[in-house]
C-alpha cells in the first residue's frame, strides 16, 4: 500500500509534474497551491504524507505547520519540507515544529522523491508493526 500524498506547492509546473509522477506511481494524490487550501485538504483528504513548500502566497509552509492540528499523533501526517530555501536557520525552525525531513527541491527529481516517499512509508509501517506487536503478544 502506498500512502495518500498531499502536494503543497505554488509553482504550477512543479505541482503539475510531481502530481503526475505520484499518480503514475500509484500514490493517491491531492494538491494544494498554498497553506490555507492545504489545511482544508488535510481534513477532507486525510493525507499520510505532506510534501510542503515553504514560500507560498496567502499562507506559507511555516504558518501551515503552526496551524496544523497535531493533537492526534497517530493520524498526523508525516510532513516533508520540500523547498528551495536551504538556509540553516529556516531548516532548524521547521524541524522544531515537527517536520519529518527537509529536502532541498533542486537536489531531487520526481522519480527520487517518489522513491523516498515510498521508502519512508515502508519504514513507518515497519515501525508501526513493531509498536503493535508487544500488545498483540
Amino acid at each position, binding site marked *: 500500500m502506498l500512502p495518500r500524498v498531499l502536494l503543497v506547492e505554488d509553482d504550477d*509546473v512543479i505541482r503539475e509534474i510531481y502530481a*503526475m509522477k505520484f499518480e503514475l506511481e500509484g500514490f493517491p494524490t491531492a494538491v494544494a497551491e498554498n497553506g490555507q487550501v492545504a489545511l482544508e485538504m488535510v481534513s477532507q483528504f486525510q493525507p499520510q504524507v505532506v510534501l510542503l513548500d515553504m514560500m507560498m502566497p496567502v499562507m506559507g509552509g511555516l504558518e501551515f505547520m503552526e496551524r496544523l492540528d497535531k493533537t492526534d499523533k497517530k493520524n498526523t501526517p508525516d510532513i516533508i519540507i520540500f523547498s528551495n530555501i*536551504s*538556509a*540553516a536557520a529556516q531548516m532548524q525552525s521547521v524541524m522544531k515544529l515537527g517536520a519529518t525531513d527537509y529536502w532541498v*527541491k533542486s537536489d531531487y527529481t520526481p522519480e527520487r522523491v517518489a522513491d523516498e516517499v515510498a521508502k519512508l512509508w515502508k519504514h513507518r509501517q515497519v515501525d508501526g508493526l513493531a509498536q503493535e506487536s508487544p500488545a498483540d503478544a
Partner: protein
Amino acid sequence: MRVGEFSQYSNYKIFIALGGMIALALVGTITAILAMTQMLQVREVSQHHNDARFQMENLLTNLETAETSQRGYLLTGDQVYLTPYHQTTINANRQLQTLGQQSNGAPYHTDILRLQSLVHSRLAMLDQGIALYSAGDIEGSVASLKSGQESVISGQIRRSVSGIEEAQAGLLNQGRLSVESFAGLARGVSLATLGLTLLLASLVYYLYVKAIQAERELDYAKDEFVSLASHQLRTPATGIKSILAMLVAGDLGPLGQQQKYFVSKALESNEREIRIIDELLNVARADAGRLVLRASELELGALVAAVIAEQRTAIESKKITLRFKPAARPIHLEADEEKLFMAVSNLLDNARKYTPEKGKITVAVHEKRGSASVEVTDTGIGIDETEMSHIFDRFQRARNVLGGNIEGTGLGLYLARRIMELHNGTIEVSSKKDHGTKFVMTLPQRRT
C-alpha cells in the same frame, strides 16, 4: 535610512564623540598645567620678596652698628670702635649691591636705587666725621654729629625701606589673589570637563551598542536576501529539471533514441546550472559569514569514496585513469558532511577539468597524529607560479590552455578553502607547470 547607512553614520558619530573626549582631556590637562605654573611663579616671587626683606633688615642693622661705632669713636677716640665700623660698612655696601641685583626687573627697583643712594650718602657722612676726627678737627667732627642732617637721612632711609616693603606686600597679595581666582576657574573647568567626558563616554557606549545592533540587522537582512535569491533562482530551474527527468524516465511517453540523447544533455546542463546557482549562493553566504556548519560524525574514507563514485563516469569518459588509495583503517571525525563532500568534489572536479586525456588522477586519504587529510593529485596542466598565490581567491582559475572548453564559475577552490577554514582545517597546493598539481586538505581529528 538604510541599515548599512545607519551603521556608517553611527561609526562617524562615535569618532566625533571620541575626538570630543580627547579634546576635553587636553583642556583639563592644559588648565591644570597653567594653574600649577602660576602657583610656582607666585611662590618664586614670594621667596624673592622674603630674601629682599631679609637683606634690608640686615642693611638697617649694619647701618645702625656703623653709626653707633662711629659715635663711640668720636666721643672716646678709642680705635677699638673702628673695627666694627669698617666691617659693618663693608657689609652694608655688599647688601646694597645684592639688593640692586635681586630687584632688577621688579616694579620697586627704582625705590631700591633710591635707597642705595640714601645709604651711600649716610655712609659718606659717617666717613666724613671719622676723617675730621682723625685729622684733629675734634669740634668739626662733634658738630657733624649734632648737625641734625643725619637724623633727616636716617628718617628718609627708614621711610624708603617701609615703602619698599609695602610695595612688595602689595605685589605678593596681588599674586595670591590672582592664583586664588585662577584656581577657582581651574576647578570649574576641571569639573565641567569631567562631567562632559562622562556624558561623551555614555554617548560613545550608546552609539557602540546601536552600531552593533545595526550590524546584526544588516547580517540578518543579507541572510534573508540570500535565502530569497536562492528560492527565486532555483524554482524555475527545478521546474525544468522535473520535466526533463520525467521525459528521460519515459514517464511522459516513449522518446526516440536521438530525442532521449538530447533531453539527457538538456538535463545535464540544467543540473550544472543548479550547481552554479548553489555555488554562487554559497559564496554569498560565506561572504556574509553565514556559511554555517552542521557537524555530525562521519567516516572520511566513505565520504571520499562517494565523491569518486559520483564523478568516476565523467573522469573515465575522458580516458583519465582514476586511482583511490584509502587509509589503512576507517577515519571517524566530526564534520559537515554536505560541505565536506562539496569541498572534495570541487577538488576532484578541478583535477578532471585540468587533466588532459590519458592523464592520471590519484585520490588518497591519510591519517596522521590528530589530523586526517585528503590528497588529490593529477598529471594535468599544472599551475603557473604567478597564479599560485591567487588560486584560492574568488573567480580565479588557471589559464585555459586546453582551448577554451573548461566550464565552471572559478568559485570551487574558494569555497573549498572557506569550508576548510570553517572546520579549522587547511588546504595547500603544490604544482609544477605541465606536470601536474597536488591539493592537500587537512582536517583536525576529534574522536567522538
